[in-house]
């Protein structure tokens, strides 16, 4: 997994509540059996005027010029500002894969849907929860200044604005540790294989019908 330590990049504002995973990456692109290549179809139905197809070359497709990521000032954006309940809907990990493949490293919102939030950490993408007021401030500053950049310092758990203002955020110690070091969850869990086996043996004794039934 990609490490996340410190990142500075242009902020892009998605000024809309309840952005769902169907919006982030529509279903026709979930047919891929790979983890990469979803970036060109990120927000496909908002970003293009036509209906996108899997494996299609997106160069030359008609763009929705009003969509925020199509505006010249947000080209190269890597920090996404969003509203409440970002990532609601399905469990598709294709959503963080698409954001990551597009170039986003962090998403800042007042709240996230749980499965999406969880999926981000497995992919080196940092979701940050700030208060409504703090998010509102960042939206206002982004709108006011072209090329507005935010720095995200995971070690110190702060978002730093261009004026030097530091906004602290909360994050789980375990998730922070994994992101900072790019650690693979499975490897960490397998360090406890003895605990798992011990539990499993107990389970086999108490609920034997859950073993060797499905084959």
């Amino acid at each position, binding site marked *: 997994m990609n490490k996340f330590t410190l990142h500075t990049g242009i902020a892009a504002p998605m000024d809309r*509540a309840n952005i769902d995973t169907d919006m982030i990456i529509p*279903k026709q692109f979930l047919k891929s059996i790979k983890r990469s290549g979803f970036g060109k179809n990120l927000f496909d139905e908002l970003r293009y005027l036509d209906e996108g197809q899997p494996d299609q070359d997106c160069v030359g497709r008609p763009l929705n010029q009003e969509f925020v990521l199509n505006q010249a000032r947000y080209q190269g954006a890597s920090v996404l500002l969003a509203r409440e309940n970002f990532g609601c809907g399905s469990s*598709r990990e294709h959503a963080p894969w698409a954001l990551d493949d597009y170039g986003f490293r962090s998403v800042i919102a007042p709240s996230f849907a749980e499965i999406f939030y969880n*999926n981000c950490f497995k992919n080196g993408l940092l979701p940050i929860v700030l208060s409504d007021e703090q998010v509102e401030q960042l939206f206002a500053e982004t709108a006011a200044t072209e090329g507005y950049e935010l720095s995200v310092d995971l070690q110190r758990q702060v978002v730093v604005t261009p004026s030097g203002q530091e906004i602290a955020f909360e994050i789980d110690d375990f998730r922070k540790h994994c992101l900072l070091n790019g650690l693979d969850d499975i490897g960490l*869990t397998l360090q406890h294989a003895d*605990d798992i086996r011990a539990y499993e043996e107990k389970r086999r004794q108490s*609920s034997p019908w859950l073993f060797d*039934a499905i084959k």
Partner: protein
Amino acid sequence: MAGQTLYDKLFESHLVRTNEDGSSLIYIDRQVLHEVTSPQAFEGLRIAGRKPWRIDANIATPDHNVPTTERSGGVDQIVDPVSKIQVKTLDENCDEFGILEFKMNDHNQGIVHVMAPEQGAVLPGCTAVCGDSHTATLGALGALAHGVGTSEVEHVLATQCLITKKMKNMLVRVDGELGVGVTPKDVVLHVIGVIGTAGGTGYAIEFGGEVFRAMSMEGRMTVCNMAIEAGARVGLVSVDQITIDYFEGRPFAPKGEQWDTAVAQWQGLVSDTDAEFDEVVVIQAADIEPQVTWGTSPEMVVGVSSQVPNPANETDQVKIDGINRALQYMGLNADQKITDIKLDRVFIGSCTNSRIEDLRDAAKIVEGRQVADNIIQALVVPGSGLVKTQAEEEGLDKIFTAAGLEWREPGCSMCLAMNPDKLGNGEHCASTSNRNFEGRQGFGGRTHLVSPAMAAAAAVTGHFIDVRELIKPELVK
């Protein structure tokens, strides 16, 4: 000390260890796999040179991509080449690792959340995961079921465990008795309307009270299925005799002496009477009428006798923007009567509403009637091969086709339109599925979520109508 909730009991009985940072490792008894969210997980195992921890904890079936039209030609005849590869990849992965899979034309194939309970593959007291957010459905069995992402699918395959944090407990209690024509779907849509699409975030929601105690297992599954549309990863119903009766004789349920031991265990899978919930929501059944969503989030829902909201009545700007955007996308006007919404298609199916009772509900309404002229297509897609056979034995397929509805093969179908079943741009659909997101059922498609009875009523009238107006007198309790 206060008693425990069902969620607390299920969580604690599966706890392998608590890490220093407060995260927990819980043991997963069952993983259900389908073709969309598993290929990258299997690939991850192969790249790392890992093997599944326990083969017999897994069961698989393709559902999202499969065609629902005649498909005796098998996987090779799936027209969409990308869908074909995905279904084939599931077959190959299951064959390679020795995982039991009900393949596309197996009689037991079906939508994962229909197949798993009807096979008894997931049982009360289990923990279960699936790379699909509607795994919440299985909480209706008294199981702790989580929808997970693909990395977690791989994690559970490799370790049989999930890294998680204990959720908070919410009780949604619905008191009283549902009126005639008011179904489990209406209950859950109403609940989402009350608590909002993020109201359950961070919670395991237990559905309690007289309404759920009286509800069938299939109805409970419909309700838990949509817990995620209220933001909750987990929905639950305490075990009772209805739960236990449901499992007797199912293929993977325990038999003989083991059955008796299991039943004794399962009877304890209830929230204690003195359990404390972090949040309690109380709703009166009498306040629930048949529901229809008008917007692009499941919380945008009203009773059928009501009208589309007017943003002028709101004060919060984010909410006003949301309503305006939804009205524009849906092609509706503020204050428009719900019964004035004209429809183009009808979809009866999905992991929410494709079980036998759903099909019976819909058949009762369309029997002796005809699909309205303005309806381009009305699809009935059973949730599994077993549901399909049972419906045919009961003659439901004949009732549907005589009325002008199409009777299909099992799969997810138009719920998310990954297969050829989809809405055209701008078309309105009365759908028994679970999400009315923009583009969900097809590019530019406009979804209205309703119960099977309401969808059937819409099919024969061409617009929304209070299904209670069509219910025959002999069906009234």
